[in-house]
């Protein structure tokens, strides 16, 4: 047996060792204390990460004009330092409209830079600031790619409820993540049509089976069921200039995520939040890889720790 004395000397040794070894104390891919936040599908994650969605396939509900869009999207997040990362994503779109030949092509290139504002382990809270850029002239116009660039500052947050009184046993697995942000197009109009500034807000309400098993009560769940996280995501966009304020659009996406040691798989229904968004139903599936777990000593580390 290997002895692990849990005393002051060991803690001092641990602190010293943390400074000189390669322990990944940045808690990549969504940890705040004992809470694990999975990567969500509709809303942005409140943590920097080394992760990749490869791919995310969406069959969107028909829009108000009857057109329907299918997307195949790839996302990559890469930590530069333990607290910062960059993101890049793009998607291939296929657009079908009644009475018109369907068209396909790349959507706009999207990039981002993010800073982990705080990670509060005891309170299972996360905060992140980001600036996303949707680049103009980087996709095919016939599938909706813009001819202008849009800047989108965001604040993303996460909160687990594991710190509420332990007597509230089955409320403790709840967690919520959210996004608050704006879109600022760099061009006011396109062919006479206004490009509004938008207010974006979205939330993911999660109920973590892994948290039940690790930290609340062993109810006998075993893999794969103990790795499931049912959730409901909602996201809305409201124009705040150059367009009527009542043109809010949004989506509601109930679904489930299975989180394994190296990757997660998620599936959600897509329900338009109002008639302005569309009608009917759609669906999305995502295969999401944790690069920091797959390659912990190479590309899964922050770039600042490569040398």
């Amino acid at each position: 047996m290997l002895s692990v004395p849990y005393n002051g000397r060991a803690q001092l040794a641990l602190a010293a060792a943390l400074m000189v070894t390669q322990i990944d104390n940045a808690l990549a891919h969504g940890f705040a204390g004992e809470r694990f936040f999975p990567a969500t599908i509709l809303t942005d994650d409140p943590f920097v990460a080394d992760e990749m969605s490869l791919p995310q396939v969406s069959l969107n509900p028909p829009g108000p004009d009857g057109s329907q869009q299918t997307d195949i999207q790839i996302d990559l997040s890469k930590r530069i330092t333990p607290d910062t990362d960059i993101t890049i994503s793009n998607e291939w779109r296929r657009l079908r409209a009644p009475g018109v030949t369907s068209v396909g092509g790349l959507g706009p290139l999207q990039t981002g830079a993010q800073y982990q504002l705080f990670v509060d382990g005891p309170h299972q809270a996360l905060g992140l600031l980001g600036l996303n850029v949707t680049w103009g002239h980087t996709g095919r116009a016939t599938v909706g790619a813009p001819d202008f660039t849009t800047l989108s500052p965001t604040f993303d947050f996460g909160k687990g409820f594991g710190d509420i009184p332990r007597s509230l046993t089955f409320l403790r697995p709840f967690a919520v993540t959210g996004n608050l942000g704006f879109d600022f197009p760099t061009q006011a109009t396109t062919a006479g049509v206004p490009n509004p500034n938008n207010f974006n807000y979205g939330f993911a309400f999660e109920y973590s089976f892994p948290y039940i098993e690790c930290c609340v009560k062993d109810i006998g769940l075993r893999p794969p069921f103990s790795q499931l996280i049912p959730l409901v995501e909602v996201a809305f966009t409201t124009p705040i200039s150059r367009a009527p304020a009542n043109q809010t659009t949004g989506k509601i996406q109930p679904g489930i995520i299975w989180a394994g040691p190296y990757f997660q798989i998620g599936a959600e229904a897509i329900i338009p939040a109002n008639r302005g968004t569309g009608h009917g139903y759609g669906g999305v599936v995502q295969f999401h890889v944790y690069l920091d777990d797959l390659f912990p000593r190479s590309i899964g580390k922050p770039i600042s720790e490569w040398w």
Partner: protein
Amino acid sequence: MRGILAALIAVAGVIGATPSSRAHAFLDHASPAVGSSVPASPPAVALWFTQDLEPAFSGVMVTNEAGQRVDLGNAQISQGSPAELQVGLKPLPPGTYLVSWHVVSVDTHPTEGTFTFEIKP
């Protein structure tokens, strides 16, 4: 679409075939079980994780409702079972006890957690 599915399955297969001694260590199960009630004071608390642990950076302690430590301070990882962490307990009276653990898996990722168990009167 079939090509995408085939690629997905291939990627999942490659990832699934990677050694199981990597990635974050999650608590698999414990004795006494998480949130359980037991009829008498157990001699030890044992925790089994999903990944092998780094002994130098892994620990567990048990406290009573007053926040006083009631474990023997002899947390151990078995050489024959490197994913198992255990600590001895003093003889305990009925009450609720908090188990706090922190571990580092062999790929250097840290995780932590807490849970309670109860000794019935």
